[in-house]
């Protein structure tokens, strides 16, 4: 099972975190601190796994951003590595050539997408198309609601003119 997902920049700035096991805020900060110390210092030609506190952390660097997921020691590391890539591909499709800035300013979007890819610390959907469809549907619903609200305010505004 995946215990947490952390996206950190090369400078150690947190870009996204999601916790599937109960960690308190204090523990979360400790995890992030220790892992950034461990992972950001690793050279480029090393393997994508680090062993940490009885767990394994699978990470991969995309441009300036590190995607880290922690799994149990007996879990399949390469499987998790490709979950990361699967997630990145979906982000890429959604944002169109995703970059760190997209994720910074649309971290809420990233959360929506992550919730369609992982659930309960397990992979939820392996089809990129299916995820894209769900996210698009959500967006439409939010848009519709906004338009409705706008037209409603217009009506009220006109009525009370």
């Amino acid at each position: 099972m995946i215990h947490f997902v952390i996206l950190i920049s090369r400078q150690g700035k947190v870009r996204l975190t999601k916790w599937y096991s109960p960690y308190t805020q204090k523990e979360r900060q400790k995890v992030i601190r220790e892992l950034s110390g461990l992972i950001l210092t690793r050279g480029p030609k090393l393997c994508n796994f680090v062993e940490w506190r009885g767990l394994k952390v699978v990470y991969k660097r995309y441009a300036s951003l590190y995607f880290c997921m922690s799994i149990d020691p007996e879990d399949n590391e390469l499987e998790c590595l490709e979950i990361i890539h699967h997630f990145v591909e979906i982000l890429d499709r959604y944002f169109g050539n995703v970059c760190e800035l997209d994720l910074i300013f649309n971290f809420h979007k990233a959360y929506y997408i992550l919730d369609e890819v992982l659930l309960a610390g397990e992979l939820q959907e392996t089809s990129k198309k299916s995820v894209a469809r769900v996210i698009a549907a959500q967006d439409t619903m939010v848009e519709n609601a906004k338009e409705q609200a706008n037209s409603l305010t217009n009506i009220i505004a006109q009525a009370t003119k």
Partner: protein
Amino acid sequence: MSLSGMRGLSVFISDIRNCQNKEQERLRVDKELANIRTSFKNEKGLSVYKKKKYVWKMLYIYMLGYDVDFGHMETVALISASKYAEKQVGYIVTSCLLNENHDFLRLAINTVRNDIIGRNETYQCLALTLVGNIGGKDFSESLAPDVQKLLLSSSCRPIVRKKAALCLLRLFRKNPDVVNVDGWSDRMSQLLDERELGVLTAVMSLLVALVANNPDGYWNCVPKCVRILERLTRSQDIPQEYTYYGIPSPWLQVKTMRALQYFPTIEDPNTRRALFEVLHRILMGTDVVKNVNKNNAAHAVLFEALSLVMHLDAEKEMMSQCVAILGKFIAVREPNIRYLGLENMTRMLLVTDVQESIKRYQAQIITSLKDPDISIRRRALDLLYGMCDVTNAKDIVEELLQYLTTADFGIREELALKAAILAEKFAPDLLWYVDVILQLIDKAGDFISDDIWYRVVQFVTNNDDLQAYGALKARDYLSKPAVHETMVKVGGYLLGEYSHLLARTPGCSSKEIFAIIHEKFPTVSISTKALLLSSYIKILMHSQPPDPELQEQIWRVFQRFEGNIDAEIQQRAVEYFALSRKGPAMIDIMAEMPKFPERQSALLKKTEDAEADAAELSATRLRVQQQTSNAMVVVSQPFSDGPIHVGPLTRSSSSPQEMNGDLALTVTTMGQGQQSTPQPLAPATGDLLGDLLAIEAPPPASVSSSLLSSEPSSLEGLGDSSALALLDNAPSVQPIGSIKDWFSALCVKDSGVLYEDPYIQIGLKAEWRAHQGRVTLFLGNKHVGALTSVRAIILPPAHLRMQLSTVPDTIPPRAQVQCPLEIINLQASRDLAVLDFSYSHGSAPVNINLRLPVVLNKFLQGTPLAPADFVSQWRALTGPPLKLQEVVRGVKPLPILEMSALFNSMHILVAPGLDPNVNNIVAGAIFASEARKTLCLIRVETDPSDRTQLRLTVASPDAVVSLELKEYIKEQLLDVSTPTPQFVPASTGLTGPAAALAGLL
């Protein structure tokens, strides 16, 4: 694509990004939080847009690591909004902001349930996602049946069902009873017929969790899993969107093979054949390709297949195929594959018959020990450790030793421990074992636990032909200029016991041996010094013919430590000196130690325990445990049938018969006459030598008085070093200021200086909560040199339970250490605790006794009094012993206001105006002890014409409290600046050091 523009959020994020430093960021965050807080508080009808914006900001702030301790209510409330846009934000922010242990989640259970059982599919998805991500026990109790219904429903769309499957998995993890439903395993089996791969993947995850817990009952799922694997590997009916770089859902393949590994075996021949066909195809058909992702995905499947093959105990041919594949992997350039190759080879070791073929790769594995990647080095170390046996132990351990000198810090400890264990487990001969351990101590002394050197001593003691060798080796190592303290310990011990065996070797006369050891003496810690003193007496007693010059040298050492601040050192010095003066008659006492009863190595025990802890349900893990328990021990000693203590060489009287046989071998048997009662295992304190030499510390008086009748008085009470310390003369170092003033100030304050001299400042900070207190002592070294032999002993009075954390032996120059002291008040009393503190700077020891300001009023808490309450309470308490009255004369004159202030500073809250007479004070406080809280009422009537006298009345439902409080207040009033708390606790009914103290004075 529609990125929802939320301007306020974007602006805030930009602001944060533009912050130059952490401080600026914090300020910006604080400002934003204050803003959100006021908005939530003041604006009733907050617009939807603002609400959404604010909770997103809160989440962003929380993500950055700041505490967000409000707004949870507002966030949770969004869940019950009627509009999708609000609901969505509410659900997602709640699931990030809270975890399963938050009480706020309970508020949401009803709404969540309504969404789950409602008809709206999108709401169902939102609710299932929340529960799946953070659902706890409460959720699992109230929602499991509804979630199951969704999973099984034929009318739900796949998106809902796959979420329901994973949500159920979460609930199952929190409470395995959720699947205790009749026919659930049949349902699972039906679910595996699902054609939609998204749902099937989720269902397979659920199945993995279920069978990992207990595979019984799910046997009917096995053939279905095999069929799914066949479908995937043959690419039958796999929609394009479920292939990943051309591979049919590698994740589902991995999960399915994982599920199969939890079934102990697969019996049905047809299923088994079909499965092996699939596995064979995977093993043979996986090639290295250029595309990284495709390569990774294919190898994820391959490694899972390897695990499954290992689990199924395939025929030998297939196993050696696996080993060959892994052997290829550990030599490739791609680091991930190298890592996994090593890891899986380690798992492979559990399969019988393949160990030999793995050994062929030993050279390659040793190379990996020098890999640039620490993750890979760790795997290599683990593998070498696992594959080590009698045939290759020498090579592997020597390789590890060599690597130890260059290994980086992160791995040294593990390396040293593993080398030590292997050396013990597989030593071809004991000389080699002793060599290895001594080398280990030499190279990585910091990482050698006491267990390891105890073990060496045990082996050497139990094997006569090792003794001279061990002593010689110890001499060689100790002759080196810089030696680790552990080496001094083991070397000192061995030379003490066995150096006389070397007497004819050049350079090994008793005098030379003593000189070698004694050179290390000044730099070692107290416990080692104590050990060395024992070695000295043994060397002295064993030197034949007696060497007067050596005797003179050693006596001088003993004499020097006769007055040492450390009780253990002092006792040893005094007793050894007296013993050695008795001459050769005492030689038997200092004879060599008897052999140790054979027992399991504490080291091996420890590793076994660790593995038992890490017990996993995985079938592979279970086998690991079965295999490691056959740890062998090399010594060919007969197994003693006495009780086998598993502990680091604790030399307590393990079997009485044996002890009787060796009469006069140890000091214990000499002095005490109680050798036939088996004593409990010596506690695992730092008193190593006490254990090794079997000199049981208590009761020391009986030992000394029977042996040294000439001077019994000086040794009485030796065990109680604290009592002796109090007798010390005034310290030569003078405090800067008045100890008394500092103390008085701290009686009414909670932080300040307790003591200060040119070398040290002892500050104090206290926190009090009812009957509990936590005092932190700040020991600050003001000096340019280190303060050594720092000791702090608390002598608590009977009514306080006090526990001081460990005080470091040394305080580095200009450094401050903090020592928390936990206090629990049991009863009212004016007795005081004493801190017996000592240290030395350079060579001069300083000892100070300080009263600790843990006074009665610290456990008081001022309480406001309503007039009616006061009067009724006051009347209810009539006369002594509950209500005590006394006219106090000779009071330091104080205006009434100042007197009120004095009471308030003692945590006794004055209730102004409650007594109509302005010259009177009425006050109240609650006194807290561990057993109860007592309300105390105080009334002071002053005489405006003569301020030196007053009438004090104290009332409480507890006679002791009334008396103690009255006396305490009286003391305070008599002389405000110099309270006279009693230094020596009242002598009756006291036990422990305080009683000894009272007796001495």
